[in-house]
C-alpha cells in the first residue's frame, strides 16, 4: 500500500475528516515526515473512494459543528480490512527486522 494511502486511511479510521484536517492529522501522525500536498491529497482521496476503501459522508450526516462546504470522508469496512492487513504486514516486517538485528548483534 502506498504510504499516502496508509496515512489517509489511518487518519480517517477513528472519525470522519475533511481534506485540511486529514493533511494536519497525517503531518502529526508522521511526526512531520509526511506532507500531503493538495493535488496528492485530493487525488489520493478520489482514488481511495474509487477503490471503495473510503466513502464520502453524505451532507446530512456531516458533523454539526463544522459549517462549510468541506467534503468529509470516512473509512469503509473494506478500508478497515485493508488497513488491518497492511498493519499486520508491517508488524511482521518489524518483527523479522528485529530478529535479524538481534542475531547480528549476538
Amino acid at each position, binding site marked *: 500500500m502506498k504510504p499516502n494511502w496508509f496515512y489517509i486511511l489511518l487518519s480517517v479510521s477513528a472519525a470522519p475528516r475533511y481534506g485540511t484536517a486529514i493533511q494536519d492529522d497525517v503531518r502529526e501522525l508522521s511526526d512531520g515526515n509526511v506532507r500531503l500536498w*493538495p493535488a496528492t491529497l485530493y487525488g489520493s482521496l478520489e482514488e481511495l473512494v474509487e477503490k471503495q*476503501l473510503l466513502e464520502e459522508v453524505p451532507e446530512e450526516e456531516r458533523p454539526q459543528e463544522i459549517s462549510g462546504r468541506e467534503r468529509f470522508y470516512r473509512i469503509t469496512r473494506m478500508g478497515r480490512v*485493508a488497513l488491518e492487513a497492511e498493519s499486520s504486514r508491517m508488524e511482521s516486517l518489524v518483527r523479522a527486522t528485529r530478529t535479524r538485528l538481534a542475531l547480528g548483534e549476538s
Partner: protein
Amino acid sequence: MTVSIYRLALHLLPAKLRIKHGASMEVLYLRELDRAREKGAAHVLMTSALGLADVMRRSVYELQRAAGLTINDFNGASNRSHQSQHLLPSVLHSPRDKRPMTNPNIPLPTPRQLLRQLTVTFVVALLLLTSALLYVFGSRQLSQLKSVGDVATALLLATPFTAAMTIPMAVFVAVIVVFARLGKTERSTPRSDSRMVFAHSRRRQCGPPPVLQYLHSL
C-alpha cells in the same frame, strides 16, 4: 500571482478532479504559503515551487493511470506477504477497476474546447519552462551583477529570448498532454460516437479509393 499560476497549473489535472476539488486545493495551497511566509521569503519560493511540482507530478500520474500504466501498488505490497494477500478484500481486483474511469457517454470535445485546452496547457508549460530557464540564467549571472537593478535588467532583457526558446517545447508539451487526454476519452467513448472512427468506418463502407478501384479493374 503565485495563486494564479497555481490555478492555471490545476488545468493539467483531469477535469473531474479539478472541478470537484480545485477550490479546496487552492485553499490548502494558500494555507501552505501562509505557513511558509512565517519562515521567510526563501520558504515561500520553495513552497510555491513544490506546490506546482505536486500538481505536475499528479497530472502525469493521472495520465498514466488513465492509460492503465500505473502498477497497483496495493497489489504489489500484498504479493510480498501471503498473510495480507489472504486478508485483502476482493474489491481491489473487482471488475469495477477494469471499467473505464470516465463516463462512456462523454462526447469528444469540440474543436473550440480542444483549442482552449491546448491554449491553457501551452500557457502553463510556457510559464513553467520560462521560469525555470530564467532561474538558471539568473543564478549563473548573480555573481557577475552588482546591484538588484542589474539583475532585474538582465532578467528583463533575457525574458523575451528565453520565452522564444521555450515556445516550441511548450507547444510540444501541450500537444502531448491534450492528445493523451483525448486518447483517454476516445478509448472510453463508444466507437460509434467518435467522429474520427466514424470517418474511418465510412471510408471502409465506401470501399477502396477510386485509384485502387481502377487498378483492380485492370
